[in-house]
């Protein structure tokens, strides 16, 4: 909750469907309340579009991991071959073609490690503190919009969510 004041409070609007959640997010644009989080039981394009979310940069992590893996795989194969200069099957000591397999597998392995790292770092995982302002129904059949507002606005936010067809829950 960046920039939230000490007197700010969080109100969650719980909705039974994706469409209503997306339209509520769009309707909130005209109000001074900040949407802190939107919790959904599955990833939703409608909600992402309503929030105007950009594409995740996790792919950059994956790419860097892949490059590192490619270099590591080839380097390992070349270094070990040079350390023990044994001619096998009449191939040169630095035999590029068989080393492609080692390079390829390391590329995939390091890409995946970096992908997971990106997902964990960017997604803020593990996030046990986030459970304090979370409704367990959001992993089942509800969609939750967690809004932050000044303490004096609390009733207005609750009324807004209820008017949109949702149920409001206040986190103190």
């Amino acid at each position, binding site marked *: 909750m960046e920039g939230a004041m000490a007197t700010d409070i969080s109100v969650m609007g719980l909705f039974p469907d*994706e469409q209503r959640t997306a339209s509520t997010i769009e309707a909130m644009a005209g109000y001074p309340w900040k949407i802190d*989080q*939107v*919790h*959904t*039981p*599955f*990833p939703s*394009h409608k*909600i*992402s579009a309503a*929030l105007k*979310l950009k*594409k*995740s940069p*996790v*792919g950059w992590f*994956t790419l860097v991991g892949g490059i590192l893996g490619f270099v590591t795989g080839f380097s*390992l*194969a070349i270094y*070990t*071959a040079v*350390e*023990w200069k*044994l001619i*096998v*099957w009449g*191939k040169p000591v630095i*035999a590029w073609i*068989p*080393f492609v*397999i*080692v390079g*390829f*597998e*390391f590329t*995939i*392995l390091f*890409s*995946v490690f970096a*992908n*997971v790292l990106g*997902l964990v770092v*960017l*997604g*803020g*995982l*593990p*996030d*046990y*503190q*986030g*459970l304090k302002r979370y409704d*367990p*129904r*959001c*992993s*089942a*059949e509800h969609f939750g919009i*967690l809004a932050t507002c000044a303490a004096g606005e609390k009733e207005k936010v609750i009324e807004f969510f209820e008017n949109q067809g949702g149920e409001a829950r206040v986190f103190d």
Partner: protein
Amino acid sequence: MSEAPQLTYAEVDRTVLDTLRPPSGGYWLVIMVLILGVLVGAACWGYQIFIGLGAGGQNIPVAWGTYLINFVFWVGIAHSGTLISAILYLFRAGWRNPIARAAETMTVFAVSIAGLFPFIHLGRIWVVYYMLPYPNQRYLWPNFQSPLVFDVVAISTYLTVSSLFWYTGLLPDLAAVRDRATGLRRKIFTILSLGWTGKHEQWRHYTRGYLFFAALATPLVVSVHSVVSWDFALSAVPGWHSTIFAPYFVAGAIHSGLAMVLTLMIPLRKIFHYERIVTMKILEAVAKTIIFTGLIVGYAYGIEYFLAWYSNNIVEQEAFRWRALGDYSIEFWIMVVCNSIVPLLFFFKRIRTSIAWLFSISILINLGMWYERFVIIIGSVAHDFIPHAWGLYWPSGIEWGIMLGSFSLFFLLFLLFAKHLPSISMTEMKETLDHGGGHGD
């Protein structure tokens, strides 16, 4: 999927979470039987470590035996998990969603078990670390030009990637279990779910990361069984030294893996009342894919004979004549019938929509694919170039015991999983109900 839209989110949760209730006595009885099977396998392995590799039936010229057969068999089983979870995901095949979790789990367990067999075949297991590339006073390093070292790299990468893919896919469902659990169970699932709350920032990175996972796992799965096939194809043995081995092995692996998906999903569907989630249409889609892979496998069997004839190489021709008519001809014909003829029965709608037929055919394909590895691995070295070097092989009791242990371990792990973690992805099912696809569709 005409039946799926009738479900609601709550029904999906209820159906899947109900499977995590405390199991009956029958479940524990099956678990005990499987543990017994695992102990038999472990005892046989222990005996072999004590006595030496001679406890197995391997000989000269057949030095590999069931340890390599089972290794290739289990790697093959693992492949359809990635096909279903990654390749079909990239193709946006919505029918994969209800069976993806079980298939991914099957992959992780099957690769782990496959990975045991090279260790079992090592004999001196305590020097296994020689395979690792580490600085040592002997200046010896693994030979990265060897297909066996390719295998070490490929299989360990595959195990790591498929485990991470599986766990990442589980995260939202672990959170769903946490949210409905109490006491110690809740604490465990809170830790396992990493505090996942399904907030939009988490989903934003998760869906993108999942897409990359799928995109990376797809070439990996093709490379892994290609590498396994090169254990054979890169040697100059008749029946092994063939350029078709990589695609032939990949198709065979997916064929066996799909059959194992049916073998596992059909009882699971019945026991856990998944009929509305794992619909007949989904099982039918698996059966149709099996027709496709069966045709590729049948084509590969045929083309091997064509190549032997067309090459005009008498050693190759003799190897293939002996394969069909020699000492292992029964195993050969089991392979041909079970893998490429029996699956054609799925052309008939009546058969591919019958649970009994689906289950029976899946078992026959599993059997046929095991024998395919037997025919390739044993048959080729048993009857290669020089008649005085020919020899026959049959597994010893110790090998059968270890094989029993491996199958018991696989089913034990799968049963433990099915009762303790969500065996169907609730998240992806909800997406299917809403959009008909997977993450990010």
